[in-house]
């Protein structure tokens, strides 16, 4: 049976090093391990060229080479006849390999050593399965249900009109349809310096409101580069994100640092981060991880790329459509109940409710603003429009961020089960549900 290059996708995950043999013009062979081989199309592979200089010299003189690639799932080996075609030092494929290499090598502390100089494109000829002591080998992937599962998730996303529901549809879909048990969605902070976690699945805490700086870790790198990143074996990998792991001391730690910790699997072996891009702008990152080695294939990456793009487009639509509805007539009832303290620290706009850290920054300012209106005028319903134009909020001049900020605030309040909750009552409208009598204090520390 003829083996097609695409059947060998599992060999190109960078988990088990490939091998290349070349021969100089005098016939002297050279044999070397390769860090990255990438599938280009049905007839080509690309090899990263960092430093294998004898190989590079040999293929200039004699383009014939042999490649041995290994299926990471079962160790089976495939021998490829390849022929050097050309070197590439820029372009989409180069950038894609450069970022993969950077992610992999930064994690083993070899970022500078492994800088990609160029990629070499080889045409693939005959492919042979190397005899194996194992019994029958099934190199053809089983029928792939990914496409229909992806279509179902995309369908669910397309039903939603509000950002929170879009994110939920994506994360629930990843879990239910594609068995990604651990996932996060982070949206771009409109100021452009960091990402904020807006939803997650599978972790012992949601981490809503936690932040990742652009360029930091796998998630930050995928954002900085706007490219998907997939790591299949993190066994020697430095853990990304915060080194501080918190459990019982979570709330105390948050109260002290006013920083929410990113959730994460301490034992993650595979991770994948997909940029959510729409209208050419980065909107966020979709992230999945797994405790299993090489849990994610190239096909999984493609599926998530579709979902990330769909979610990004839906979010942009939701942002632009969530406008300017008139205030509703209904006035939600609020119970008088017991008093509780809300403390606002104006220097960073952090807000504590009953001594629990809730949020800071623009979202904190928003919460205090709504609470002041509630206390002063007894109002519980607000439109995005009036919030957007409230001068005391000093909202940064970004057109499309209010929905995201309100969503973050709403989810964080839910997460902390505070007596103040924000309720989405329709496009461009929110209401405040207050259980009890808040006492708002400003503190200068």
């Amino acid at each position: 049976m003829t083996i097609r290059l695409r059947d060998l996708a599992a060999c190109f995950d960078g988990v088990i090093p490939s091998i290349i043999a070349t021969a100089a013009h005098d016939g002297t062979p050279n044999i070397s391990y390769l860090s990255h081989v990438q599938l280009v199309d049905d007839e080509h592979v690309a090899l990263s060229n960092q430093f294998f200089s004898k190989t590079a010299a040999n293929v200039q003189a004699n383009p014939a080479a042999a490649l041995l690639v290994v299926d990471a799932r079962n160790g089976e080996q495939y021998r490829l006849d390849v022929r050097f075609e050309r070197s590439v030092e820029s372009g989409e494929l180069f950038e894609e390999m450069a970022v993969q290499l950077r992610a992999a090598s930064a994690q083993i502390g070899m970022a500078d050593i492994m800088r990609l100089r160029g990629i070499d494109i080889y045409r693939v000829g005959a492919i042979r399965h190397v005899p194996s002591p194992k019994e029958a080998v099934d190199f053809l992937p089983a029928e792939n249900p990914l496409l229909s599962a992806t279509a179902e998730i995309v369908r669910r996303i397309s039903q939603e009109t509000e950002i929170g529901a879009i994110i939920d549809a994506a994360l629930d879909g990843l879990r239910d349809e594609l068995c990604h048990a651990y996932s996060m969605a982070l949206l771009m902070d409109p100021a452009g310096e960091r990402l904020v976690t807006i939803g997650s699945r599978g972790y012992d805490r949601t981490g809503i409101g936690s932040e990742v700086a652009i360029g930091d870790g796998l998630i930050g790198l995928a954002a900085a580069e706007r490219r998907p990143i997939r790591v299949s074996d993190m066994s020697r990998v430095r853990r990304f994100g915060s080194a501080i792991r918190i459990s019982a001391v979570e709330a105390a730690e948050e109260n002290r640092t006013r920083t929410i910790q990113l959730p994460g699997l301490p034992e993650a072996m595979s991770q994948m981060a997909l940029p959510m891009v729409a209208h050419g702008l980065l909107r966020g990152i979709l992230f999945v991880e797994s405790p299993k080695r090489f849990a994610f294939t190239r096909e999984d990456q493609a599926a998530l790329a579709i979902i990330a793009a769909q979610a990004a487009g839906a979010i942009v639509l939701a942002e632009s459509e969530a406008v300017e509805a008139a205030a509703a007539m209904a006035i939600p009832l609020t119970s008088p109940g017991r008093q509780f303290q809300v403390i606002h620290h104006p220097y960073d706009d952090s807000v504590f409710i009953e001594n629990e850290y809730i949020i800071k920054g623009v979202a904190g300012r928003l919460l205090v603003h709504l609470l002041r209106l509630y206390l002063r005028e007894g109002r519980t319903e607000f439109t995005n429009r009036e919030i957007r134009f409230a001068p005391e909020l000093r909202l940064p001049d970004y057109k499309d961020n209010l929905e995201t900020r309100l969503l973050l605030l709403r989810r964080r309040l839910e997460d902390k089960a505070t007596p103040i909750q924000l309720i989405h009552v329709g496009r461009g409208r929110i209401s405040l549900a207050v259980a009890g009598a808040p006492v708002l204090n400003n503190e200068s520390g």
Partner: protein
Amino acid sequence: MRLDQDLASFMGSPVMIILGTSDDALQPEIGRGVGALVWPEKGQVELVISAWQWPGTLANVRANGRLSVTFARPSDYVSYQVKGRACVVPATKDHLARAAAYIDAVGAVLAELGLGRDIAAPWLVNRDPAVLSLSVESVFVQTPGAKAGQMLQGGS
């Protein structure tokens, strides 16, 4: 060419052994070794290879003797390549014992790195063993980094 004692010890330790040859039309071929016996004074390395799994490598060595071998430590990628002329010799009891011990030891090293014996089995085959006896003519550093490809010993 006399081989450095440290290098000889490295080649005899549980490291991955990959073999490069080429036919007379300059088409390269890849194979794997399963154990090496090293005689540093003589500059000789004897490599056990499965004739069943790597017939092309064996045919190339028989045809022109050209052989290059890279030894790579799986835990930290430290690698050396030796090049020279080789011939095919019959496998002795010593070679077979060496191969069995090697497969066992390198299997344990890989398992420690998370690659179980079932995954590594296709790389560690000694069915139908043959031996390539290599006279080393040059030695190169192959560890990833600035020195990769640099010659350590020899001069061909």
